[in-house]
């Protein structure tokens, strides 16, 4: 839906997946180069000194990077939570596809064959594969792809989305950042295990990535109009899909792409008898719900759930079907990674960087309303805000 706001943003997930695969290989070559490895890291991670194992894991990493998004639904995150059965998300679908007979045939045809479980682990990481046990080595490799701070998934989508949207905030010096990534030993012997970090010389590139991420979230990914189109799309899909849910079978999943959904959406927009017509026409004719309220720090200071309070009150007054709400709060700590200072000490990034110490969190709470009602409702909120937003009370 981003192309409705930024018309050149028509790039596909496949291009991104190729980019992630390429960057993952580059990072792997840098961080496993013998000159970059301390004796302690070599001792703790035996795989890193055995050439045949390195060659195997490099292939696993690149395949995992290529497939890390293969379970995404049409239009990616737009509708994932509500339109999949309970307990499912795109990472679970990704795991199912990677381990399917269809893909296993491919893994087995490689010499030497790749274990599907290895590809699965690196593609989704420990956060999303909580049932699998990760070695230190596997944790580091999965961080190369999906790490919160400088995973190559993030590097690629920031650079790629920035280029295609024409919004320059997402650019940073990824060459310098990749050249300075290292597998660093723990700060002290009693302090756990090696992890992926950066040399001090690359800290500014890491800062630029994380600032870029913050600005891209503010300006592109959480652009309020872009977000309401996602909600209209979700409403359309809930009406159009069988039982209001996406299929989770591998074959059916692979057959349903953006193209099929777009075709159905525009058909529904033209024909009032089709399921999802009302939502489809809002997208096709750019007649989206309007932004009525957004999270304001003064309101949150009075009540952490101020968005919910306003949404409930507005729904009662104007009718639930005339309102939509979209909220998101940052999921991962991005500023906690180790940095090796020039004198060899290992410190946490946010101890060395004032920029990272003060990096704002991404948090949104948008309430939208039917276009005809926006002026009236805005006046109502202006008048009633103080009465509506009061400190939370324990329910009796």
């Amino acid at each position: 839906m981003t192309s409705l706001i930024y018309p050149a943003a028509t790039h596909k997930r496949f291009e991104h997946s190729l980019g992630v695969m390429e960057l993952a290989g580059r990072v792997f070559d840098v961080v496993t180069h013998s000159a970059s490895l301390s004796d302690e890291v070599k001792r703790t991670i035996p795989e890193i000194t055995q050439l045949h194992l390195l060659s195997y894991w490099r292939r696993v990493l690149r395949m995992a990077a290529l497939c890390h998004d293969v379970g995404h639904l049409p239009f990616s995150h737009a509708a994932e939570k509500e339109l999949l059965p309970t307990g499912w998300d795109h990472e679970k679908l990704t795991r199912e596809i990677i381990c399917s007979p269809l893909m296993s045939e491919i893994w087995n045809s490689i010499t030497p064959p790749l274990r599907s479980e290895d590809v699965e682990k690196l593609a989704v990481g420990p956060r999303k594969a909580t049932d699998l046990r990760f070695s230190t080595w596997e944790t580091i490799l999965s961080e190369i792809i999906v790490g919160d701070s400088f995973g190559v998934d993030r590097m690629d989508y920031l650079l790629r989305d920035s280029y295609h949207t024409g919004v320059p905030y997402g650019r940073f010096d990824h060459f310098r950042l990749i050249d300075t990534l290292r597998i660093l030993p723990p700060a002290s012997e009693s302090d756990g295990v090696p992890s992926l970090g950066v040399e001090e010389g690359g800290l500014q590139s890491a800062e630029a990535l994380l600032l870029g991420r913050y600005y891209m979230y503010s300006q592109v990914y959480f652009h309020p109009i872009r977000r309401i189109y996602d909600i209209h799309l979700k409403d359309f899909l809930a009406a159009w899909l069988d039982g209001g849910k996406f299929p989770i079978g591998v074959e059916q999943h692979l057959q349903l792409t953006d193209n099929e959904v777009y075709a159905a959406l525009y058909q529904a927009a033209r024909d009032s008898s089709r399921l999802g017509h009302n939502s489809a026409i809002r997208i096709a004719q750019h007649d989206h719900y309007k932004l009525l309220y957004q999270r304001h720090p003064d309101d949150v200071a009075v009540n952490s759930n101020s968005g919910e309070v306003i949404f409930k009150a507005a729904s009662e007054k104007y009718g639930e079907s005339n309102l939509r709400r979209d909220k998101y709060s940052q999921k991962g700590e991005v500023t906690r990674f180790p940095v090796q200072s020039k004198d060899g000490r290992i410190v946490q990034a946010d101890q060395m960087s004032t920029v990272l110490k003060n990096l704002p969190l991404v948090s949104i709470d948008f309430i939208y309303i039917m276009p005809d009602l926006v002026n009236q409702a805005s006046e109502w909120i202006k008048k009633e805000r103080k009465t509506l937003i009061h400190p939370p009370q324990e329910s009796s």
Partner: protein
Amino acid sequence: MNDLEKGLILAELADRLIAQGSWCGHTHLQKAVYFLQELLEVDLGLKYILYKHGPYSFDLEEVLLWCQSSFLLEKDYKASGYGPRLKPTGISKDHRSRFPRLLARHTRELSFVAERLGSKGVVGLERLATALFVSRELGDEVTLGQRVSRLRDYKPHISETDAHEAFTEFDEVARDAVKLRSFD
């Protein structure tokens, strides 16, 4: 428990840990909440896995970020050499005063965790929390030696002596937790 209620429990725990001398950084809170949920059975709905520094919950990481964006907790970098402390705000104090029944329901458990873990550093917490993880994983039918061996499989940097001490201390904490719960 909704996000706000979880946030208020976490803010109360942070306050109590700090009062017991804890630096109350991310690792301190991760391990203290692990004990609160797994041993004291305060159900916060958080999934834990064994990660770099012992048991870790990505769910809790999300809740802690929400608490910061909702002004219930704030980072404090004042002491050099440590990661940030997560300190309850004045807003959280005000909110907590409006939820007396929620906090009263869990006061004993919060006090227990703060008193037993508040004086510990991250290294001791990692060992103790991993001892809890291993004990839960292996169940009651195994020997101390088997538990030590499993812990050292997961965390080879922890010496055998330190692993033994961690289980001895954990068993004592677990016994006291059972006594505490038996007052219900």
